[in-house]
C-alpha cells in the first residue's frame, strides 16, 4: 500500500498528463468522424453568439462594399426577371403557370470562416429556426461555397469546398461529361476535378458547374474555372485543376438552398435499393 501511494505521488504528473491527453484524443477522434463533424452543443452556441457580435462589427466596417455587391447581384437578378417576363408574355401567356417551387433560398450571413486549415468550415447566422437542415447546399453570388453539416437553433456550420472530405459531382459547362471534384488540402485556389474522359474538349477558362446528379444543388450553379489540366495516360482521364469561383476570403452574404423534393427523392431511392443484395 505504501509502495502504491509512493508510486502515485511520483508519477502523479504523468498520470494527469495521460488522463488529459486521453480526453483530448477522444475529442479529436470524435470530431474527425465525417458524419459528426461538429458537436454543435451549448458551448458552441455561445461561441456562435460571440462570433455574431464580432461579425456585426466587421459587417459595419464593410457596409459600403457589401452594399455594392448586393446591388450588383440585385441588378443581375432583375435582368433575369425582365427576360423571363418577356418570354412569358410572348409564349406562355395562356399556359398553366402554377409551377411548384423546387428550390428555396434562405439568405444568410457568414459569421465565421477559415481558409488556411486542412479542413475548413463556414459558420452561418441561420439555423433550424430559419429552416436550415443538414446537407443543404450553400452558395454565394459567385458560386458554390459548401454544404451544411451541423445545425443548432440559430446557427449552422457548413463544410466548405476547401474541406478534404467534401466531394461534389461537377461537369464542364456545355458538355455532358461529369466528374468528381475534391480539394487536396494545400492550396486554397486549386480544386481537382477527376474522371472527365480524355476525349472531352477542355480549354483553360471553361466553367465547371454543378450537375443534376445531386440532391443538394440545382444544376448549373458555377463552381469554378479550369486553370490547367493534364491527361492521366494510364487511366484515360483528365486531371483538371479548377479555381473556385467563390471568394472564400471575402464571403459575406450567402444563400442556403432548400431542395423541397429532397425527402421524396431520398425515400424513393432508398426504397429502390432495399431489394438489392448487399
Amino acid at each position, binding site marked *: 500500500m505504501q509502495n502504491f501511494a509512493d508510486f502515485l505521488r511520483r508519477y*502523479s*504528473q504523468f498520470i*494527469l*498528463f495521460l488522463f*488529459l*491527453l486521453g*480526453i*483530448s*484524443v*477522444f*475529442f*479529436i*477522434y*470524435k*470530431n*474527425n468522424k465525417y458524419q459528426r463533424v*461538429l*458537436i454543435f452543443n451549448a*458551448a*458552441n452556441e*455561445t*461561441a456562435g453568439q*460571440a*462570433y455574431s457580435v*464580432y461579425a456585426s462589427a466587421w459587417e459595419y466596417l464593410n457596409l459600403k462594399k457589401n452594399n455594392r455587391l448586393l446591388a450588383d447581384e440585385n441588378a443581375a437578378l432583375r435582368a433575369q426577371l425582365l427576360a423571363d417576363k418577356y418570354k412569358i408574355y410572348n409564349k406562355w401567356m395562356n399556359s398553366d403557370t402554377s409551377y411548384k417551387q423546387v428550390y428555396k433560398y434562405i439568405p444568410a450571413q457568414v459569421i465565421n470562416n*477559415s*481558409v*488556411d*486549415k*486542412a*479542413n475548413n*468550415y463556414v*459558420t452561418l447566422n441561420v439555423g433550424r429556426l430559419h429552416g436550415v437542415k443538414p446537407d443543404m447546399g450553400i452558395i454565394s453570388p459567385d458560386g458554390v461555397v459548401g454544404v451544411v453539416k451541423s445545425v443548432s437553433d440559430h446557427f449552422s*456550420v457548413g463544410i466548405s469546398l476547401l474541406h478534404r472530405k467534401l466531394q461534389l459531382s461537377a461537369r464542364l459547362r456545355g458538355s455532358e461529361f461529369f466528374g468528381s471534384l475534391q480539394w487536396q*488540402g*494545400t*492550396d*486554397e485556389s486549386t480544386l481537382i476535378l477527376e474522371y472527365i474522359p480524355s476525349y472531352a474538349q477542355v480549354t483553360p477558362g471553361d466553367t465547371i458547374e454543378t450537375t443534376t446528379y445531386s440532391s443538394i444543388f440545382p444544376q448549373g450553379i458555377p463552381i469554378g474555372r479550369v486553370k490547367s489540366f493534364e491527361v492521366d495516360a494510364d487511366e484515360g482521364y483528365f486531371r483538371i485543376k479548377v479555381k473556385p469561383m467563390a471568394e472564400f*476570403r471575402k464571403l459575406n452574404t450567402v444563400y442556403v438552398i432548400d431542395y423541397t423534393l429532397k425527402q421524396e427523392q431520398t425515400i424513393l431511392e432508398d426504397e429502390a435499393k432495399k431489394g438489392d443484395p448487399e
Partner: protein
Amino acid sequence: MIGNILKYLFYFIFLVLLEVFVVAKFNIHFYVNPHIYLLFIVILPVFTNRHLVLFLGFLLGFIIDQFMGTGGLHAGATLIMAYMRQILLSAFAPREGYGKEDFLTIKQFGLVNFLFYCGFMILIHHFFLFLFELFTFKNFLFTLLRTLLSGLLSLLFITGLHLLFSRKPSK
C-alpha cells in the same frame, strides 16, 4: 497573491480573445498559421505547481477548441507543450538559476535563452497541432514545413506581445 491571480486571469482572457478574434482571422496561408495564445503557458511563473500547469494548458486549448470547432486539437497540443515546459525550463535555465520573480521575463532569461525556450515550446505545440489536424503521418513533410513557417511568425508575435506585457508593471 490575489493580484497575481487576477493578472494571469486577465492574460488568459486577453490571449483567448486575441487569438480567436484577431489572429485566427488572419488566414494568411495554409503554411503560415500562427497562434499566440500559448504565450500564457510560456509566461506562467517558473515555480507554478506542475499539475496546475498541465491543467491550465488543457483548459486553455479546450476553450480555443470550442471557438474553432476543432474538438480536442488545441487541447492536446497545448497539453503536450505544457508537459514539456518543465524539461525546457531546466534546459534553458540561466546560469545562476531562476530567481523568485513571479513573472517569467526576458530580462531574467536573457534574450537568446528566452527565444530558444519559447521557440521550442512553439515548435512542440505547432507540430502536434498540425499533426493532429491532419490525423495522419501521410503528409509528414507538409506538417514539418507548416510547423517551421508558422512557428517563426508565432515566435515573432509572441515575443512582441511578451515585451508589451512585461513593460506594464514598471510604469
